[in-house]
């Protein structure tokens, strides 16, 4: 009786193994061929429009935009004061009002608002918070400008580009290129900081895809 049970159990386990392997192989084949298990939803945006939300992405609406900007700037600016408040009052009705990416408009207004918020970082705050000395040349501030950009990006991506990670080097490279481009465009140090601030936060607020 026990032998029969053991035999049945063994065959069951063997079949189970085969089933698991088959499943894995099928998944591997699907993945290898570029298929997605969600392919039925992978329509183009035009097909999606007007047929209800079949998307798995969302865009930030006004409250999220404001919150993300404040987060990216490390709490150094406030949406209720300065240029941030002034520009917010101007563009708030044009920021995305829905999170459905097929219906949301106003994503172009996000960098405009970020510019206003970044402009609230005074030269003294630039120096104390980001070690950027606006009294010296852009080239002399290359390292702190790049570091400021990396810091802001990390605040948006949960430190994925923290020091020592491969992403850190790539993000730093992007900001190095940006600062060099700004030097070529005749930027002052403060303008270069605002340029870095806009790039980092525009990415973090509206260009991550969620």
């Amino acid at each position, binding site marked *: 009786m026990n032998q029969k049970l053991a035999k049945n159990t063994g065959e069951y386990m063997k079949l189970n193994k085969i089933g698991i392997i088959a499943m894995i192989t099928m*998944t591997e084949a699907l993945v290898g061929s*570029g298929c997605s298990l969600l392919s039925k939803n*992978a329509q183009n945006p035009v097909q999606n429009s007007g047929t209800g939300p079949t998307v798995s992405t969302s865009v930030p609406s006004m409250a999220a935009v404001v919150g993300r900007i404040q987060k990216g700037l490390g709490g150094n600016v406030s949406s209720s004061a300065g240029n941030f408040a002034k520009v917010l009052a101007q563009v708030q009705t044009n920021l995305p009002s829905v999170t459905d990416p097929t219906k949301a*408009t106003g994503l172009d207004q996000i960098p405009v608002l970020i510019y206003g918020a970044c402009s609230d970082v005074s030269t003294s705050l630039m120096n104390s918070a980001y070690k950027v000395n606006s009294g010296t040349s852009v080239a002399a501030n290359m390292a702190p400008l790049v570091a400021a950009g990396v810091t802001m990006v990390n605040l948006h991506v949960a430190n994925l580009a923290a020091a020592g990670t491969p992403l850190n080097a790539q993000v730093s490279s992007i900001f190095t290129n940006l600062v060099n481009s700004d030097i070529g*465009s005749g930027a002052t140090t403060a303008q270069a900081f605002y340029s870095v601030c806009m790039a980092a936060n525009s990415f973090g607020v509206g260009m991550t895809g969620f």
Partner: protein
Amino acid sequence: MRIKVNKSWKEFVDKKPHPTFSRRDFLSRGLATSVATVAIPHALSMAMAKNAFGSAASCPPAVRTPGALAQIYRDGGPTVGAMFLNQQQVSFMNATVAGNYGIVQTDIAQVGANWYLATSSPFAIGLMTPPSGISQAAWNAVLMKTSLGGHYGAFNQDDGAGENSGLLGGASTFKPSVLGKDLRINNQASLATWAQGIPSTGVSGNPSQLSVTNGSIAKNFGIQPAGNTTSALMSNSAAAADSLSQLFLGLFGANRTMAQGAVSKATCGFYGDSVLADPTYGNGLFNPTAIGALSSAITLANLSQEEQSLLAAYYQSAVGSLGGVFVQQNGCDYHGQSVQNTIAPSDYEAGRMVGMFLAACSIAGSKGAMIMLHNGQAIASGVVAATVGPNNVNTNGPSAQGDAGGAYNAGFILAFDPSSPPVLSSTGTFNTTSGNVTAASAVGASTDAVSGLYLTAFAHLGLNVSQAASAMAEGSPQNIMLIS
């Protein structure tokens, strides 16, 4: 003694049909699978992302499509009979119809190629009075280059019932422009389903609050504070943000539906913002005194701030900087309202809006299509004398009574062509005794009527009608269009 043991078929084959897996084998293959599952889609998505977000070059180019497109949505139900009249209405006009429409029958005169106005109505005074600087003869010639079309009977839902039934359209997706967006002024009612998500910039407040001096439109096309950046620096910044999005897109799931689309919209929007760094950009577009063609043709100082603002906005649509201009005029629920204080000023304002639109088209030398919609209407009982405008011109305004969208209503399109007016038609069956109207079956629903008016406008302006019809889910667009 021999012991017989039953054997399965498996013990007679030379080789087992599959290898036996140890736990280590299994874990090893599982690890490989896991790596493949993560790495392959990551690599694929990064490759796709690279194609999708290479640079500003992947964004749609700024294309200037000449031709003005505009809509006035008169919210609340005005006396629609005291606006445009078509040839058929004029032919059966009698005292009863004139009373219901709130007009003086003997005042009716031809104004456009196929349309008429009761010339003493506030709407007619607003529209037929030329903008200062243009002679009456020249203005009359402009008006004669217009043609009227209409879907009559489909807009029978009064007040709140019709307000959010999707009577505001959109254009920028179908009419490429430099700014790539529409301008929406005071748009509070819901948009047509197909118009939702079409890029636009909104200006809040009633159109009567528009001000060139305060730059109420222009300030939405600029950045503040000025001086902390330049167009070149913003382009540099956009390129860096673009690179960051490429770097992280694979990690965050490029394969999620619309992930690429959402990032692409944001990226292209950022690239497009670079022009805003020019502190004169918005003013150059929306202050008519900064536009030579307008300031030389019209004595702008004699126009109100609202008229100047709309003139510039319509002009930017006409020359292809903007998609369309969509204005919601509030306070048009005429039921029980004072003719002098509410009805006549509102009709006069609407007439001036149409006038500014036609002036902009004429000066730009481009085609134009203006759509006018209303949620229901108020039936009239004759006229009441009232004065309108800065010169207190005497008019006969409609003495509006109860809501009666079910009796008479209309959605109009006025098309302008600087060469010769197009041939537009109308739908709906009139009761020649009362002037009431019944909608045609093809446009029994106001949604179809709105689509038909917009498709007509797109066809007149030479835009892609089939693309628009598809977005509107209109399978037989010819059945609802008013242009042949």
